[in-house]
């Protein structure tokens, strides 16, 4: 099967700091891939490069045959790649329904759904369990609810590849479980997922494959079991000599 996403030699430098260094990988359609690495490893920069928020110094990004490099963020979304943010970024002064409806107005989505953007926003809120709060102002939501808005908004654009930047950060166990269930459902619907997460146990259960990064470089790439045993990953990220509990 041909790759859905093909990243070759991606490179980004901020002044003297190389944030992403010659990163290459491919993603097969319908897979869930985790990105692992200590703070400052370049994970979020990689997301910003893939989604057009930052332009790379060199390298290439191809999504389903289309060259994404050089595209503005909204055009990347229109190609079928959507993202969430590490820190939830709701639209303030707007209701929960409006927050999701904005994304239902993306040109391609609107064409495909016959312009019924509010109905579509309601259906998405239903999917993430926020339907009863549709008319609420986002200011009074819990952090967990804001995370669900992030996901509903990303889904509203009908992505084929979804990039989740630490979706579980700041959530308790009771909030992580339903969110993880939603991610699994998306995978079962055939949406490919790239996920950055520090909550290892939760992430390792979700993913088919893990890419480990350190100082902007890919240091390991394999199944969760392989990564949990990789000496470089253990040294850089886990800081322990023995294999990771519950992973290996």
């Amino acid at each position, binding site marked *: 099967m041909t790759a859905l996403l093909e990243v070759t030699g991606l490179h980004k430098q901020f002044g003297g700091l190389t944030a992403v260094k010659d990163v290459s990988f491919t993603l097969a359609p319908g897979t869930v891939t985790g990105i692992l690495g200590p703070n400052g490893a370049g994970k979020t920069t990689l997301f910003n490069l893939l*989604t057009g*928020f930052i332009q790379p110094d060199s390298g290439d990004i191809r999504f389903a045959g289309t060259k994404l490099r050089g595209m*503005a*963020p*909204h055009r990347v*979304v*229109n190609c079928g790649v*959507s*993202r*969430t*943010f590490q820190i939830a*970024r*709701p*639209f*303030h*002064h*707007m209701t929960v329904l*409006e*927050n999701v*409806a*904005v*994304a239902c*107005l*993306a*040109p*391609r*989505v609107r064409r495909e759904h016959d312009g019924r*953007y509010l109905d579509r926003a309601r259906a998405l809120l239903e999917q993430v369990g926020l339907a009863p709060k549709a008319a609420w102002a986002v200011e009074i939501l819990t952090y967990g609810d804001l995370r669900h808005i992030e996901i509903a*908004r*990303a889904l*509203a*654009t009908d992505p084929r590849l979804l990039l989740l930047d630490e979706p579980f950060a700041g959530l308790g166990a009771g909030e992580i479980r339903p969110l993880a269930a939603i991610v699994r459902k998306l995978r079962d619907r055939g949406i490919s997922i790239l996920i950055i997460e520090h909550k290892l146990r939760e992430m390792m259960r979700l993913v088919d494959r893990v890419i480990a990064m350190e100082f902007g470089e890919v240091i390991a790439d394999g199944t969760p079991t392989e990564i949990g045993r990789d000496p470089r990953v253990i040294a850089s990220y886990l800081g322990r000599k023995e294999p990771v509990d519950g992973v290996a």
Partner: protein
Amino acid sequence: MPRPTRWWFLAVVLAVLGTVPYWLDNSYMVGVLILAYLYGVFASSWDFMSGQTGRENFGHALFVGGGAYTAAFLNVKYGMSPWWSLPAGGVVAVVLGLVIGLPTLRLRGPYFALATLAAATILQRLTIILWEQTGGEEGISDLMPLVSSPVAFYYLALGFVLVAAAVLVLLARSPWGLLLRSIRGDEAAAQAAGVNITLHKIGALLVSAFFAGMGGAFYAHYQLQVGPTMFSITVSITVVIMSYVGGIGSVYGAVGGAFVLTLMAEALRKVGEFRLLFYTLVLIAILFFLPRGLIAPLWRRLRNGGSAP
């Protein structure tokens, strides 16, 4: 008592304002009201761009003055009918909006705010430098009035502000308005939701400029004279304050803010030289105690039948 309260309120306001020339036998006060309506157009058009998208325009006088000078040129120099001035003033303001918006609205940071501020100042200087065409400090006078009778002028101005505000409110409540407000909420999140933020900000600026330009042309044909002060920072800042006092982001609030502040400035003439002091004190009080403004929260309260929003 849900929604009907609002319509009663609106009906009473319109009934009072709609009959002013019949019960107010004071042509000076009628003139003040016309001014209030025109400032209502300036303020609501400002709010359409800056209140919806959150990008502050500190040089709205650029569009007001641009429309006014267009009217003066076409009417006085080229002898065209004053009715041509309204659309022409709007179009010239749109062109000015493109010149300012295209380079600056694609950037983050204060560039748009600074560029609008600078552009209005530059045009004000230009009216002095190019005095042979613009009349310098004196400006251009002897414009033709749009209509001859003061009563007709009153109704024209009232109709103008009502139509402008209605169009802007409808646009703000359309799906497009939702996109504009998402830009104010969070630019990066809007981009991630597929919104072409640069395009929509420029679009909002052009709509804003068009109405301000028409308003400026109308103003010119009411004052029958234009001068460099049309481009002044005073006009720009007054419009911003009116929008804030009315309640930023609601468009109709700006119309109310313009009305209240114009009448207040007039009432304060009685205190003579202390006028500015009082005016400023009242402004500070409103912004301090009613940070959401005076008009927009009132309107929301009416919808909810008296209970808090």
